[in-house]
């Protein structure tokens, strides 16, 4: 009895010590080893061990133990099959006792137990946490055959349960640590400070990064909402206060950008605060969130806005100067049309009066010179007209629309007729229909009119003039040909005849200003097209212009 009593006392003392260790240590291996030591010692067995069930649900690894030499703890494994006492214990959850394994008929025993000369074995299960598989088994092994009393089993179960509770505590602890490590790393990676504000008092608990964002690396960490507001530049204070009010009263979400003054900076820094109201749990209502220094981003945004502004200013400045130079050109064109014409009119008019009213007094030679004045004045007038037309084509507002070239050709010919074009001198052949194009009708008519005039003018002296207008479609473009059987142009001159004032003939043979084809080129280019000429000297010229084709439905784009 005495012996029993002192054993009981010993067991209770050991249990108390273990309980203390299990509550305070974070080291599971230490705890398990100590448990093994204490139960081995208390039960007087040679060996004790904890085998841990592996994730495969079948293998048990010797996780800790006493009495074993090297090569067992952390190494030896047992397969928890039905023919092992371990498997049985795991399956039933009941303690398994084998007083003598030589007499045991139900189970096989692992080789290392036999090698160590184990005779008697007691197993109790270490349960897992809620919804989890068992952690493993607490085992004591004896080299001598022995019985295990109910008290012994109860004693073992006490340890097993304490171990189970400790395992659970540590796993929760580890998960919490993992989560907080993850959070910390994520915050660090994002360069974010974290804070928590007690809503009632306005007291703020903060991370180190939060402190450095707000600029004080002080020992005294006593942040409050009011202290924060004081740091905010005055014009942003209303905004941040509103944001907080709305987070508390309505949305539960704080999201605000503002500027703060820091002692060490010359300029305010931009800060973003984001937080959530937490008023559901047991703890008093609080705002939990992060703070970020967004100064760089803000500066970049401002730079972008400024450069956009500068760009816009430049564009508008250039637009203005363009408009101005257009206005100057306009004034110039007016001057040309009005002021240059007036003296010409006078020269021509007075020379003609001389001829008509004073012809007799002039004599033949005087009359001839007066004619020369009239001729020169008329040429000059033609030049002014053409230059004006050229300048108009270059500056006119171009309105691209669905256009039927046949109509533009008709308009061009009507226009030529009213300007005194002698149709009878030319056989003009126009194909009955044309693919529609995108063009400005007025400019197109002028371009075609000039080409027809040009074709008719350079007629060969030995044959009557034939001019053909036809079109061909080339993919997305339409090429309109104006072909003649006139004198033609030598290939080496073909490139330059579209230049303004370019002439290939003297005034006596083919009078002209050298502007007509330049108007063609300018007009076609204004409409986004191209032009050119083929043919050869003596056989005629084939002028072409090429513009974008339009959809074949006449409905499209007509207005």
């Amino acid at each position, binding site marked *: 009895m005495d012996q029993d009593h002192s054993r009981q006392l010993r067991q209770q003392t050991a249990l108390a010590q273990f309980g203390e260790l299990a509550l305070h240590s974070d080291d599971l291996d230490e705890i398990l080893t100590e448990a093994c030591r204490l139960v081995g010692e208390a039960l007087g067995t040679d060996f004790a061990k904890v085998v841990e069930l592996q994730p495969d649900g079948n293998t048990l690894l010797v996780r800790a133990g006493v009495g074993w030499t090297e090569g067992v703890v952390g190494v030896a494994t047992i397969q928890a099959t039905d023919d092992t006492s371990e498997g049985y214990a795991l399956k039933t959850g009941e303690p398994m006792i084998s007083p003598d394994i030589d007499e045991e008929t139900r189970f096989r025993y692992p080789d290392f137990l036999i090698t160590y000369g184990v005779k008697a074995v007691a197993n109790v299960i270490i349960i897992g946490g809620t919804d989890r598989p068992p952690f493993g088994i607490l085992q004591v092994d004896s080299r001598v055959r022995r019985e295990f009393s109910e008290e012994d089993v109860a004693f073992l179960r006490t340890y097993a349960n304490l171990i189970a509770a400790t395992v659970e505590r540590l796993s929760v602890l580890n998960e919490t640590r993992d989560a907080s490590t993850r959070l910390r790393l994520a915050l660090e990676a994002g360069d974010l400070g974290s804070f928590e504000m007690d809503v009632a008092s306005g007291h703020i608990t903060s991370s180190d990064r939060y402190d450095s964002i707000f600029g004080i690396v002080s020992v005294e960490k006593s942040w409050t909402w009011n202290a924060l507001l004081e740091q905010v530049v005055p014009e942003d204070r209303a905004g941040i206060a509103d944001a907080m009010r709305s987070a508390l009263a309505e949305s539960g979400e704080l999201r605000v950008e503002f500027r703060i003054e820091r002692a060490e900076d010359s300029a305010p820094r931009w800060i973003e605060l984001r937080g959530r109201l937490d008023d559901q749990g047991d703890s008093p209502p609080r705002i939990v969130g992060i703070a970020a220094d967004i100064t760089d981003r803000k500066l970049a945004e401002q730079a972008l806005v400024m450069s956009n502004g500068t760009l816009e200013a430049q564009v508008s400045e250039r637009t203005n100067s363009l408009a101005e130079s257009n206005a100057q050109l306009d004034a110039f064109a007016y001057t040309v*049309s*009005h002021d240059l014409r007036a003296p010409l*009119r*006078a020269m*021509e*008019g007075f020379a003609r*009066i001389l001829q008509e009213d004073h012809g007799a007094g002039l004599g033949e030679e005087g009359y001839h010179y007066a004619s020369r004045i009239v001729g020169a004045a008329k040429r000059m007038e033609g030049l002014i007209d053409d230059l004006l037309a050229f300048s108009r084509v270059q500056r006119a507002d171009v309105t691209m629309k669905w256009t039927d070239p046949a109509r533009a050709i008709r308009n061009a010919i009507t226009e030529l007729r009213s300007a005194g074009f002698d149709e009878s001198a030319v056989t003009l052949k126009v194909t009955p229909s044309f693919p529609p194009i995108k063009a400005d009708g007025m400019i197109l008519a002028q371009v075609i009119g000039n080409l027809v005039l040009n074709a008719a003018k350079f007629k060969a002296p030995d044959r009557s003039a034939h001019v053909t207008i036809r079109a061909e479609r080339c993919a997305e473009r339409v090429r309109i040909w104006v072909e003649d059987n006139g004198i033609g142009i030598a290939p080496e001159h073909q490139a330059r005849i579209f230049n303004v004032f370019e002439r290939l003939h003297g005034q006596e043979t083919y009078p002209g200003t050298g502007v007509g084809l330049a108007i063609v080129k300018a007009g076609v280019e204004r409409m986004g097209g191209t032009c050119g000429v083929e043919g050869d000297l003596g056989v005629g010229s084939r002028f072409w212009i090429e513009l974008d084709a339009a959809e074949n439905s006449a409905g499209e784009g007509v207005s």
Partner: protein
Amino acid sequence: MTTGTMDDQSIVLLVEDNLDDADLIRHAFRKADVRNPLVVFDDGDKAIDYLLGREEYADRQRFPVPRLILLDLKLPRRSGNEVLSVIRATDAVRQIPVVVLTSSNREDDIRKAYDAGANAYLVKPMGGNALVTMIRSIHAFWISQNSAPY
């Protein structure tokens, strides 16, 4: 209501600063056998004084209201359109037909002249007898055929 004849002696007022053009027009009047006296002013201010019968033009016997005004647009000081606006704003003369006779064929000028109250817009012609022909038609239409309010 007056309908003119070849012998109608109502005057035509020409506002023209270019003396060459004024001479050519005068010559064309003769060539076209238009006998209406041509009163020529080379600036808008004087033309307005005349039309309003101010200063030395107070005597309407000597300086009668014209039957027709030929108006150039580009004038020193007061432009043709300004003269036109004053005419149209002055009860005594606002019904007088005004034919703009100018060098400019700019759409903008044409529009503005009609806005200011022009009755017709003619571009000074060049070459041959174009001007004589034009003066003849002006006379035929505005003086012979047209019924004037004065």
